[in-house]
């Protein structure tokens, strides 16, 4: 294998370039690649290399993120149907890509609905089309390249990401590092032929399974996909037997960026952190640790070290630096934020006035006529109607015979969804009590929100900072999990809390949805933004943050939680331009009621 992967030249780029070659060998088997990168020369170069490695005639299509079912899955080809007088199916993007690769642009903005459609096709290699009077099975064995341009916690929906074997992060690669492909079209073609004959020993499968567990990867898919990557690697290297080097490569590519834990055995080998890692933001600028470098020279001289350890070590080297930092010094608050925020990104259905289909209806009643759908419905009837009208002696010469029942009008998602952001003061002695209340309110609101499709988020602030405990979600399951462990006590970093709530609210606005902030506090800030316990500065910061919220026009309700309401909270409410509610002995029910009335108000305002 050394002729394929010359060890001396292994840079991050060669590692990624090799991933392209492995994917090119078996796009449908590996299902896909998640390519995290902004658009730019690095991504273009990677895609160009991949394209070069695929067979000349293999389909290569790009899917826009807002693709409709008609284009994605296929349907009735109206013009061809009318022309030929028989139903003609129009193949969708997925069927067109059979045997090739589909690029999903801006995959981080993909809706769950689209992602699961892709997932179903990836699983089965067939588009099952039951649409517009057509019933078809169209082959669609294809690989997907999900172009993930997300920033921060925006990620590709799990339905898609979980199925994609390889996850690459091109963001940190300098243009200067770009190099030629590690393979060529002929080698890939030969590997494709060989692929079916590649064997893998049971003990190697076990190593991969153990590695997946060691890195805390819960889903079983990555383990299965890693076997396929290993087979590709063997085939590309011209072998019919998967080697230890192959599984190391597979583990790197499949497990590296999915890790949620580090193998315990590695802990003691890690270098000591230079600084107190408490805030987690002091990520060393070590940049990429060049995964290939230290991985498996061992294949040349079988080291006494167990194979397991070598695979673990290789994989660890492939974990992106920030992620590695996070895994090494887990900070419960922080990691909870991360994982929940990530999962929140999964559920992001388009909201505002998106057309979601058509229904029979009368355009006269104010609904928007969908002409194409109307014609589509009318098309098959033309002969029947012509015959009938001729029989009745009515020989009108209309080109298209339309009836009232043909009319199709657009259906829109009725209303922008509302997300309630609870910002809860978890400081001091009353914290636990207050949090329990907020928790109850969050769950009550959620329980009501099935049909409204509303969401809830929860920010808590205490000690030195604010945490996003629950990213916007509609899922009671996830809410319960996130709310299970709620820390309390410490100072009151009110400004930090308001700022975080503001950030969350702005994120919601960006998605085209409506945020409502409900702030539960006694208004007595004592930790300033810089983390110092300066009461006056803390107060100034809080009011400043509040004004930002006001400027953004975000509806806010301040719930004063102090046992004896004081002016501090009322003043803050004024800065926020917020409603004020004193709730000294609040309970979850009353809080929910208050939230509900603010929401109703907000909704009324939106409807205008």
């Amino acid at each position, binding site marked *: 294998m050394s002729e394929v992967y010359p060890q001396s030249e292994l840079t991050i780029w060669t590692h990624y370039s090799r991933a392209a070659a492995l994917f090119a060998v078996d796009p449908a088997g590996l299902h896909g690649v998640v390519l995290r990168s902004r658009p730019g020369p690095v991504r273009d170069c990677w895609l160009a290399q991949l394209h070069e490695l695929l067979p000349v005639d293999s389909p290569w299509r790009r899917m826009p993120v807002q693709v409709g079912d008609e284009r994605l899955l296929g349907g009735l080809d109206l013009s061809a149907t009318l022309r030929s007088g028989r139903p*003609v199916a129009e193949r969708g993007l997925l069927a067109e890509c059979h045997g090739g690769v589909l690029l999903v642009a801006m995959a981080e903005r993909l809706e*769950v609905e689209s992602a699961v459609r892709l997932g179903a096709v990836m699983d089965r290699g067939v588009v099952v089309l*039951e649409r517009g009077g057509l019933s078809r099975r169209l082959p669609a*064995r294809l690989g997907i390249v999900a172009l993930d341009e997300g920033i921060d916690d925006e990620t590709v929906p799990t339905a898609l990401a979980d199925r994609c074997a390889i996850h690459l992060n091109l963001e940190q690669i300098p243009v200067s590092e770009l190099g030629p492909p590690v393979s060529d079209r002929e080698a890939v073609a030969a590997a494709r032929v060989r692929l079916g004959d590649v064997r893998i020993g049971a003990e190697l499968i076990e190593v991969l399974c153990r590695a997946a567990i060691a890195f805390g990867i819960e889903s079983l*898919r990555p383990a*299965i996909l890693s076997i396929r990557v290993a087979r590709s690697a063997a085939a590309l290297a011209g072998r019919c037997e998967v080697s230890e080097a192959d599984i190391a490569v597979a583990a790197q590519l499949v497990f590296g960026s999915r890790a949620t834990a580090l193998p315990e055995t590695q802990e003691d080998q890690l270098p000591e952190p230079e600084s107190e890692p408490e805030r987690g933001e002091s990520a060393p600028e070590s940049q990429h640790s060049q995964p290939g470098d230290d991985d498996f020279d061992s294949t040349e001289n079988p080291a006494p070290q167990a194979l397991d350890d070598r695979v673990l070590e290789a994989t660890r080297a492939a974990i992106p630096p920030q992620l590695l930092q996070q895994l090494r010094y887990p900070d419960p608050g922080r990691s909870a934020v991360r994982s929940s925020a990530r999962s929140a990104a999964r559920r992001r259905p388009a909201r505002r006035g998106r057309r979601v289909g058509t229904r029979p209806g009368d355009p006269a009643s104010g609904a928007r006529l969908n002409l194409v759908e109307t014609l589509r419905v009318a098309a098959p009837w033309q002969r029947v109607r012509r015959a009938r009208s001729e029989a009745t002696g009515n020989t009108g010469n209309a080109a298209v015979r339309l009836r009232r029942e043909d009319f199709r009008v657009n259906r829109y998602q009725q209303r922008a969804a509302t997300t309630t952001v609870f910002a809860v003061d978890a400081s001091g002695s009353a914290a636990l009590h207050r949090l329990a209340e907020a928790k109850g309110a969050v769950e009550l609101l959620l329980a009501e929100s099935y049909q409204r499709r509303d969401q809830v988020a929860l920010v808590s602030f205490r000690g030195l900072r604010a945490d996003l405990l629950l990213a916007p979600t509609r899922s009671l*399951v996830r809410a319960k999990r996130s709310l299970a462990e709620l820390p309390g006590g410490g100072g009151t970093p009110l400004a930090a809390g308001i700022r975080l709530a503001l950030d969350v609210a702005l994120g919601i606005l960006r998605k085209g949805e409506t945020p409502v902030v409900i702030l539960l506090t006694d208004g007595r800030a004592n930790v300033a933004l810089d983390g110092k316990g300066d009461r006056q500065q803390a107060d100034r910061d809080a009011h400043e943050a509040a004004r930002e919220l006001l400027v953004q026009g975000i509806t806010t309700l301040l719930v004063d939680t102090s046992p004896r309401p004081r002016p501090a909270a009322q003043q803050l409410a004024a800065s926020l331009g917020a409603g004020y509610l004193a709730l000294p002995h609040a309970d979850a029910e009353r809080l929910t009621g208050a939230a509900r009335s603010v929401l109703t108000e907000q909704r009324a305002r939106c409807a205008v």
Partner: protein
Amino acid sequence: MLNKFDSSTDHQGFSAGTAAGNARNESTGHATNGKRARKREPASGAKKSSTGRQAVAATRPEFPFSAIVGQAEMKLALLCAAVDPGLGGVLIFGHRGTGKSTVVRSLAALLPPIRVVAGCPYNCDPEAPSAKCEFCREDSGTTRPNSRQVRVPVVDLPLGATEDRIVGALDLERALIAGEKAYEPGLLARANRGFLYIDEVNLLEDHLVDLLLDVAASGENVVEREGLSVRHPARFVLIGSGNPEEGELRPQLLDRYGLSVEVTTPTDIETRMEVVKRRDAYDQDPVGFVSSWKNRDARLRSQIKQARQRLPSITVPESTLRRATELCLSLGCDGLRGELTLIRAARALAGLEKDDRVNDSHLRRIAPATLRHRLRRDPLDEAGSSTRVERAIAELFDS
């Protein structure tokens, strides 16, 4: 133990594969349509011939049911529904990649085949042609209808399916070519006497969900659209699966399912390795793999058959009935539905285990699946509904 009938070397499949064979199972549904089958060939006018179409559709058999590792409750629920289709469907909720779709799709090959009236688009039973079926009504009066043996239809309701294909609509081809107004049956017709499977059911559009519930409850599909007026039998076991992280199911819909199971990814290493190895073996040689599990599937099949025969004679003692009532009361399940389903499911389980009377053990094992989705939601109770049912069972049976 939970799965007496199901050897401990049972298993779990996994849906990440590139399985392509569903078309084959479904084709059993409409192959019975004789002349109709022809119509489903691709329209010749479609752009670019679809190369390799046959290869995709025909060869790959589904992952065998008995080769699925673990997931005992999911398999138990499906088997109970297979023994007594009147149980009212199964809802499977769980994490990604736990083999939800794999297990459902494996049913078609597992279940005893059925006899259908040849040419009937609704798979009518030749012994008891439905009076609601137009096709069979026309034919009746003559002698016994010709019949043929087919696999139990397991029909996938694919995402993005439109209403006209679900309920059936105007036959496009006949309308365009012959200028005739004719009804072309949809997925509901194909699913009659079998299973209708909706993956990602929580993402299905609301109006389609309502429609399906309506048909599932009445056992009949009434089409009044586009100048067509048709009704036909549509009795099927509704199976839905989904991932709760992607959104909850409407409570009204939850209650309509007879059984619900929660599946999780196995955490112990041995089980995980077994899943991965079997999946890999299947990927490499689907046909060989399936045939190596044929005998186990056959054993299960005869178990199901016997259970169905035994079902009418299985008795439920008074004390067991009382237990069921107590359990439902203590959990605050709304309505009688939970209780009735609990008894019914326990009978199916007793049948599978070759018992002649339902006992506490049956009740106890099937109770979580029958009740966990019927609990009144208590947002302030931290425990999940499964835990609450387990707790109530322990209190009732162990005291």
